[in-house]
């Protein structure tokens, strides 16, 4: 019997490709913003904290976190799905990857919020 799923595989893969392409752009902006100051200065504690106070930079960091997490964990799910072919394995892999993704996004968001001082 066909298991009812929240999303079709084509919809999941569409999200996978969109997040992958979007991540390239936000990571590029993130790297370019590091290049506007000397590299050593970009790693300075005060400079990093100042970045976290910049709402534009915070939005970029949060986007990177969300996009890379979705893309990366789905990629891992896809790789792990190939290892075994049974429903129990598929369910375990799906639950583990989704919960890990949520946990990472939550922890990363918490770090951003704390550093921002919101």
């Amino acid at each position, binding site marked *: 019997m066909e298991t009812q799923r929240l999303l079709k*595989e*084509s919809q999941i893969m569409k999200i996978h*490709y969109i997040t992958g392409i979007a991540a390239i752009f936000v990571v590029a902006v993130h790297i370019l913003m590091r290049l506007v100051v000397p590299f050593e200065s970009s790693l300075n504690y005060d400079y990093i904290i100042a970045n976290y106070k910049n709402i534009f930079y915070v939005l970029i960091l949060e986007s990177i976190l969300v996009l890379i997490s979705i893309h990366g964990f789905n990629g891992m799910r*896809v790789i792990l*799905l*190939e290892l075994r*072919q049974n429903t129990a394995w598929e369910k375990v892999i799906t639950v583990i990857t989704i919960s890990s993704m949520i946990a990472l996004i939550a922890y990363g968001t918490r770090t951003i919020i704390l550093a921002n001082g919101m």
Partner: protein
Amino acid sequence: MSINDNKIEDKIKLKVYRENRRENSKSHYDSFEVPYKRWTTVLDALLHVKNYVDPSIAIRYSCRMASCGSCGMKINGFPRLACYTKISELETSTIECEPLGNFPVIRDLVTDFSLFYKHHKSIQPYIQNTENVETAVEEKTYSYYQTPQEVDKYLQFSYCIKCGLCYSACPTVGTDLRFPGPQALAQLYRYYADTRDESKKRLNIVDDRHGIWRCHFAGSCSKVCPKGVDPALGIQLLRSYMLGVSKNNKKQAEKIEVNLD
């Protein structure tokens, strides 16, 4: 062809994989010296061995002209049709014949195609049209008109002879037996692109965790196809339809009434 071609008879060493699943025998290779000429194919050489040296070698073959797709095997590690591979083209002194990869071995070079055909059958490889043309009208029949451009969309995929070489070469099939494989997916595209076909549900069959999205696009399926079919292209075109990048704006084939009288 010169007269000398008929006189010169070189010999080649043929290494043949031997295994009998029913007897649980240990796999090994048997070597044979086989005379060959410029036009001798690997199948000819194997049949020479079977006829004059060792009749117990198991080979599956039929047409000897690359039409039936029965004699697929790994020749020097590459999936090929034995009847379509000339010994002189291989340019090696030893030829190694092994059963196709990704298929269970039944005996020697004969493999079990059950799962392969199951995948092929699962994609419903036939034209689905709600109108039962044959029984709709007693005295008339319908003909579905297609332009050459519409035929070109799927023509190359209809040349598939189900030899299993692409399935054997596919790295995804090697790890995931629920993956339909390049042959089934290319055939799905063949029927999906056909203007006579009305089925909209066919794509859902492969929109699965082990479906079309597990293709790594290695492209080895297209490289080994003896009929020039490009299954990797079919898979990518199907994906583009499923992602909504391409629209399947196929106009339904024009129905023409033909009066048999």
